[in-house]
């Protein structure tokens, strides 16, 4: 080969570089995610050290050293014993139902089943008959639940029926007078008001009907039952009130807007504790002599007022998210205000705020634990109450009880927050189109 004009020709291979460190498999993943720089490696080691410091003792305490069986404190005061699950085991019925009579607990279970039967089809977007399900949940279920849990058979005096009839008659007369004065057809408004009055009377009648169930006073309710009752009544009652307040806040009528703003900002500005104090201490003063609400009902009123202010803001968010064109279209179609809201705006707005409503419910569900401060025994209340049971007093009892309660709350809240995220993604997808 003639190499005269070329200064250098490589005659052998250049030295090979080492193959690149692996980018796949466990080692490659660790190199990429855990040890790609000095700082990151230090963070990883610190993180693993924290885990190593916390996890083994916690697992030991929770499961390995834990006491699962036993019928008194003696089982749990052993040297080196961990969590006292025997305590939770022995008190489980109380934690769920409070002091609800043993032979009547099927009523609570049945109410729970009725609730789930409504909630599951309402929560799964693919199931049809949404309107009917929601109606069942906010009308039929509360009445059935009330009758089942308290036993119904409310003592409604004849005097009450007389005054109710008088009031209804008065209302009908006013509607008729207005219609005649305004030269409107009489039939439709009269039938509407009449049906409304009759529906309310029917609710009272069902409450007063004797189904043969034993009366269980609310003093005996407790545990998860009270937690769920307070949270669900709070959210169901706050839903219509919240919608009305949200519409009021966006109304063009200055007096209505002002009242709504003051109401919403007032309840949102004060802590729930003061609201509960108010409803338990101040409310009895505001009622006429002889009218007495029981403790649970007073707490429910406070919680519902509080929740409705938050609900109003959530709904308002939905109303604001609806484009102006929709409002104008409703007007252009000649729909009245209530028709436009009912048929055009609210169906869209309420669908948008489902995640917000679920988040409000999560907050409310956690906040129900506050009722223990005014002497009601919700799940947390009944757990703390049982710490003073001398039969179960051990150093590990409080921590075990708290962890059990925390776990129950956590399951509910975590589940609901995942659901809300799922709905959010779903709604978002619809919007992105």
């Amino acid at each position, binding site marked *: 080969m003639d190499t005269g004009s070329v200064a250098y020709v490589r005659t052998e291979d250049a030295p090979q570089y080492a193959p690149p460190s692996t980018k796949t498999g466990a080692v490659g993943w660790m190199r990429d*995610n*855990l040890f*790609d720089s000095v700082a*990151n490696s230090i*963070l*990883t080691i610190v*993180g693993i050290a*924290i*885990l190593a410091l916390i996890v083994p003792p916690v697992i030991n305490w929770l499961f390995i050293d834990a006491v699962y069986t036993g019928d008194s404190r003696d089982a749990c005061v052993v040297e080196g014993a961990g969590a006292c699950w025997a305590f939770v085991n022995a008190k489980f019925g109380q934690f769920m139902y409070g002091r609800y009579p043993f032979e009547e607990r099927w009523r609570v279970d049945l109410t729970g089943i009725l609730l789930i039967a409504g909630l599951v089809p309402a929560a799964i977007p693919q199931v049809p008959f949404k309107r009917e399900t929601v109606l069942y949940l906010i009308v039929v279920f509360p009445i059935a639940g009330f009758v089942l849990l308290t036993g119904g058979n409310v003592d409604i005096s004849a005097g009450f029926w007389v005054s109710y009839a008088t009031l209804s008659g008065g209302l009908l007369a006013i509607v008729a007078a207005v219609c005649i004065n*305004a*030269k*409107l057809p009489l039939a439709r408004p009269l039938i509407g008001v009449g049906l409304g009055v009759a529906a309310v009377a029917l609710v009272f009648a069902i409450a007063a009907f004797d189904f043969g169930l034993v009366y269980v006073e609310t003093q005996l309710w407790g545990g998860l039952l009270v937690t769920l009752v307070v949270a669900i009544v709070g959210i169901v009652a706050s839903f219509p009130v919240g919608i009305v307040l949200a519409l009021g806040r966006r109304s*063009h*009528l*200055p*007096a*209505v807007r002002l*009242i709504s703003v003051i109401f919403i900002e*007032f309840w*949102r*500005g*004060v*802590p729930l*504790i*003061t609201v509960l*104090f*108010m409803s338990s*201490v*101040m409310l*009895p*003063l*505001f*009622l006429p*002599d002889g009218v007495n609400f029981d403790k649970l009902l007073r707490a429910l009123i406070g919680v519902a007022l509080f929740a409705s202010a938050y609900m109003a803001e959530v709904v308002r968010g939905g109303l604001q998210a609806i484009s102006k064109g929709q*409002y104008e279209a*409703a*007007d*252009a179609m*000649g*729909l*009245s*205000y209530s028709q436009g809201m009912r048929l055009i705006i609210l169906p869209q707005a309420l669908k948008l705020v489902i995640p917000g409503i679920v988040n409000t419910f*999560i907050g409310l569900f*956690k906040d129900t*634990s*506050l009722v*223990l*401060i005014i002497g009601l025994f919700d799940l*947390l209340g009944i757990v*703390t109450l049982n*710490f003073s049971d001398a039969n179960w007093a051990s*150093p590990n009892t*409080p*921590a075990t009880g*708290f962890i059990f309660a925390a776990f129950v*709350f*956590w399951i509910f*809240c*975590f589940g609901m*927050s995942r659901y809300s995220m799922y709905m959010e993604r779903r709604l978002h997808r619809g919007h992105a189109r």
Partner: protein
Amino acid sequence: MTPVSSATGEHAGDEAGTSWFYNPRVRGMIFQLLVVAALLGVVAFFAYNAKTNLERAGIASGLGFFSERAGFDISQTLVPYTNDSTYFRAFLVGLVNTLLVASIGILIATVIGFIVGVARLSKNFVIRQLAQLYVEILRNVPLLLQLLFWYKAVLSVLPSPRQSLEPVSGVFLNNRGLILPEVIGQPGSGLIGYAILSAIAGAYGIWRWARKRQLATGKQFPSLLVGIALIVLLPLLTFFVTGMPVDLSYAELKGFNFAGGTVVNPEFMALLLGLSLYTAAFIAEIVRAGILAVSHGQTEAAFSLGIRPRRTLQLVVIPQAMRVIIPPLTSQYLNLTKNSSLAVAIGYPDIVAVFAGTVLNQTGQAVEVIIITMLVYLTISLSTSAFMNWYNRRVALVER
């Protein structure tokens, strides 16, 4: 104006003119009158009942009770208070305690929240998962449960004073609380306080000046470093120049308990721990969402302009993220302040425990006491949201 404006008399069937019923102005007026009348009716009904009920129970009304002798003790008082003081004093003590726990709680929650929030976005798998674990556990468990857990399951099972833990020499931890050495100022120690204040003022002045100069000439000045140096060094210098006029008085074990020293009550610690850890979980989520809200294009644009990563974070990402973070952050601060009312459950003497608890029980004047308590929280909330609205307008994006 009103959506019903298009409604005309055609609904009235064969009537010739438009009925007043379909005039939106008249309808609006009548509706508002009805609402106001109903509201006044309810208020009047309640007021009448309250008046008769109070008269029957023989409870005085009015704020006269404020100047009466309280006659009970409070475990933590930052303003001078004995059981001979008036109810008004007790009210003040409670208010100061609320503000104390809220302000320290906000500080700690912000620090933890920002750290955890950034950690949730970390590239590091272990750190990211740890942060997520923290957020998901603390966010989904009621705060009251967490407070009771810290108070009853952690702090009450600490050893008794005689077997106190001593993590740092002179600092004791036992079931009566955390006992720190007491700082006793000798004459001249006031100067140190002035030194701190003037150092802060000086640092602010330097920052203003450096900013102005940079806008005018483009020259940069390390105002942050100089400021920190000033704030650290000037008080230290004063401390040594004035001859170290501060003494530490260590607590000593006497009998069954410690004497001397500054005692931090377990109630305060439990409340502070619970409030700040719980709120930090929410703040972490806000911080994460805020940083994610800054689109990646912003970072890429900064890089393509040749701005270094650290400066990009400082000048491009953080200012835009803050705009998203601040409004929900303030509402978390408000939540923390309102949640501090849970103190009543563990016996920390905040305004609800002292005023709406003990004072209410002693005087029986439920209406006045509850309304005043609510007004205190309302004032805090409304003034914070007023400040927030002002701030929001200031930092809001100016669009064309």
